[in-house]
């Protein structure tokens, strides 16, 4: 059995890995503002549909986008996790014998989650920030930017804290593992407080007026092939919902 500190370390390592991929600094495959609008629109369309062929079409489109953006692994993770949780939530429906409702519910969750994830994967978190900024949500994009900046730092601090404890743990016992795991909580709360204190000072020190330049690419749409594909998918899915 893995010790608690190893499990925590593995957890933080995996989390860091996923975040690292989402924070990929390479150029987003979608135009950020268009990517955000289309991802919300298409997720909304799929979320309100009832027909099986819409769900299947959505999953096909999502897989194509995930493959094109080279985020297939992450996309599969999210899709399967969505199916698992949808299944758990839908268990009572099985008891009622509503099999079709069950399948529709699970497919709806899986299709909308996988479509949204595949587009988000193509945008990356930095693309989302840029997109929100370009769409005029300047404050929201700044807040999201701060969040994105500090999550990896937080994970790094947690990992360092675990390693520091492990380096001075000479006996392996269940009690020690729990001490390591639990003592981390206080440290992380304190670290959160300390970080927010300095963050507020840092922002304050460089705030001297209102923002006067707007986002970087204010709806200058220079469509990428994926933009066009996402637009085509959205129109087709909307049509299938409309046509029933």
């Amino acid at each position, binding site marked *: 059995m893995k010790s608690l500190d190893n499990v925590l370390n593995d957890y933080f390592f995996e989390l860091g890995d996923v975040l690292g991929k989402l924070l990929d*600094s390479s150029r987003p495959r979608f135009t950020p503002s268009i990517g955000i609008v289309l991802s919300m629109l298409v997720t909304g369309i799929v979320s309100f549909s009832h027909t099986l062929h819409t769900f299947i079409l959505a999953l096909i489109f999502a897989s194509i986008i995930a493959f094109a953006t080279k985020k297939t692994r992450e996309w599969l993770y999210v899709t399967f996790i969505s199916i698992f949780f949808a299944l758990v939530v839908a268990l009572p429906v099985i008891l009622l014998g509503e099999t079709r409702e069950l399948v529709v519910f699970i497919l709806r969750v899986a299709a909308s989650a996988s479509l949204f994830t595949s587009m988000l994967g193509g945008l990356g978190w*930095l693309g989302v920030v840029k997109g929100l900024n370009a769409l005029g949500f300047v404050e929201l994009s700044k807040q999201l930017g701060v969040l994105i900046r500090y999550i990896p730092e937080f994970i790094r601090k947690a990992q360092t804290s675990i390693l520091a404890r492990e380096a001075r743990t000479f006996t392996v016992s269940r009690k020690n593992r729990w001490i390591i795991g639990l003592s981390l909580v206080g440290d992380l709360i304190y670290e959160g407080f300390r970080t927010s204190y300095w963050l507020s000072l*840092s922002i304050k020190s460089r705030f*001297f007026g209102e923002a006067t330049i707007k986002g970087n690419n204010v709806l200058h749409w220079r469509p990428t092939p994926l933009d066009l594909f996402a637009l085509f998918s959205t129109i087709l899915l909307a049509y299938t919902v409309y046509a029933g």
Partner: protein
Amino acid sequence: MLEGRNITFSYLKDDLVLENVSIQVKTGRIQTVLGPNGSGKTTLLLLVAGLLRPLSGEVLLDGKNLFEMLPGARRYIGIMFQNPDDHLFSPTVRDELLFTLSQLELTRGEVEAKIQLVANMLHLEHLLNKPIHALSFGEKRRVALASIIIYDPTYLLLDEPFANLDPKTTALFLKLLCDLRKSRGILLASQDVALAERISDYVYILSNKKIIWEGEPPVPRNILDEAGLQTEMAPCSFGQSPQ
């Protein structure tokens, strides 16, 4: 001139961190506050930058109360924190540089030109689109310095700017500070006596909550002793295995 006059400050009741401290940051020179760990150097910088309010005393910018001119007056004061992770809050290097520029009513072309200029000065061209968390410590320090010199403040307050830097980055910072001192006032907080004496035009020694000495370097040795900035090293034979 940026001036802290008779400043007294405490974080906790009845536990003063600074007591009746006065300091002046004049343009055209580098001033350094030297003091041991925990002497209140960082707190003094935060007070002079107008980020903390003194219990008594005042902070003046060109003879006027700084706190009555905030936040607009922050345009003239740039402070770099000791830990770059505390200083940098944007997702990418470019966003960090854009934060202040976006408040200056500049055109997109002017903004881009300023970014390129500062990136060139601090060798950040290849890092502009990188996430901050992926940078090394030295790179983060360079970005932190870039984030304040980009908006061209008159006074630069730098907290331990040379700590933990490799020799190359130290040399880059030294050259930059020498260039910047011509038109700006620079206040450094440090505990590196040798470096401070080499680059400073004026030195303040902070110890036991007070400025115990100020003047042009070199600092008298007895003052350094008193402040705990100079100690005798215990004898140790190197190159021999312990018995």
